């Protein structure tokens, strides 16, 4: 696969290194010529200097035959335009943008970026999961707007000591597993929820708050 990486900061550098080690063809575009020299000294001749949002730079990088364009600069507006130019001018099949402001994820997808990666959100999630005794944790986002969450049933929860069939879950929400002590329970409609249960559920992201109010 031919991958062009725009932005030679830490993310771009380690990404290029990783892709190379997996046997992909990689070219990195970096604005700062000194940084290009640094990268090429370590990784071999993989980086070229230039403004990745410019069509001329993308053409020189061989965007026309690239399978993927990954834009990982520190500026959201640059990442957006790099991906849009790659798509519009060079018909790159898959564009991936790093999103620094988590609020921009939806916008980028609406504007044609295929995949968005929000470092800020990932780090927030990891930190949230690492804090003990959290009653409701968003574990992961996937498929655009779905989420897997972990909710702990409290003593005072409205669903404690009730069977799953009796609970009115938000639409399209599924309880996929219950972690009770050391055992993992695959739930059926008759399974009773007990205080202390960890409920693993799949829900739409905009229903997370509703689910939190219901379960916790």
């Amino acid at each position, binding site marked *: 696969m031919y991958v062009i990486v725009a932005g030679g900061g830490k993310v771009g550098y380690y990404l290029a290194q990783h892709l190379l080690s997996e046997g992909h063809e990689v070219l990195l575009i970096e604005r700062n010529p000194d940084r290009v020299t640094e990268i090429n000294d370590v990784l071999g001749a993989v980086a070229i200097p230039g403004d990745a949002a410019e069509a001329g730079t993308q053409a020189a990088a061989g965007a026309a035959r690239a399978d993927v364009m990954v834009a990982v600069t520190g500026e959201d*507006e640059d990442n957006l335009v790099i991906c849009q130019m790659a798509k519009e*001018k060079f018909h790159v099949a898959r564009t991936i943008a790093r999103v620094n402001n988590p609020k921009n994820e939806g916008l980028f997808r609406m504007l044609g970026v295929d995949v968005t990666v929000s470092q800020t959100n990932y780090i927030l999630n990891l930190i949230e999961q690492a804090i003990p005794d959290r009653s409701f944790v968003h574990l992961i986002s996937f498929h655009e707007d779905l989420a897997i969450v972990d909710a702990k049933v409290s003593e005072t929860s409205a669903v404690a000591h009730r069977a799953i069939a009796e609970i009115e879950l938000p639409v399209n929400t599924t309880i996929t597993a219950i972690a009770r002590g050391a055992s993992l329970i695959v739930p059926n409609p008759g399974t009773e929820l007990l205080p202390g249960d960890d409920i693993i559920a799949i829900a739409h992201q905009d229903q997370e708050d509703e689910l939190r109010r219901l379960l916790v």
Partner: protein
Amino acid sequence: MKAVIMGCGRVGARVAGLLDHTGNKVTVIDTDSRAFRRLPAGFGGETIIGTGIDEDILRKAGIEHADAFIAVTNGDNRNIMASQVAKLIFNVPEVVCRIYDPVREDTYRRLGLTTVCPTTTISAIVLDHVMRAESEPDGTRGGAS
């Protein structure tokens, strides 16, 4: 009319001053508060510090009721992103985006943005003057070289 202008450089400040002077409601956004010094004396519009690629800042600037959005910061990509937000998220009827890079300008014009490219515009005017001087020799220096 209500206009939101992003970027209070020479162009932004001048357009803001002219629109304000002719009785329009104007809000100017810039990341640097010192930029607002460029606004003419007696400017009656609003100023907001922040970046126009942030939806919250645009809302604060009244983008939801704006008839026009003008993106004239010195960053092409910032102008492009903010213009797309104004047009597609806030449905502003008239969005004008300055893009210095002619290829980028061409691409986003095709994608439906109303764009202004100073590079091509000024080059055309300059060339026009040069060509005219060549075809209408005056005085002692005649003919094309």
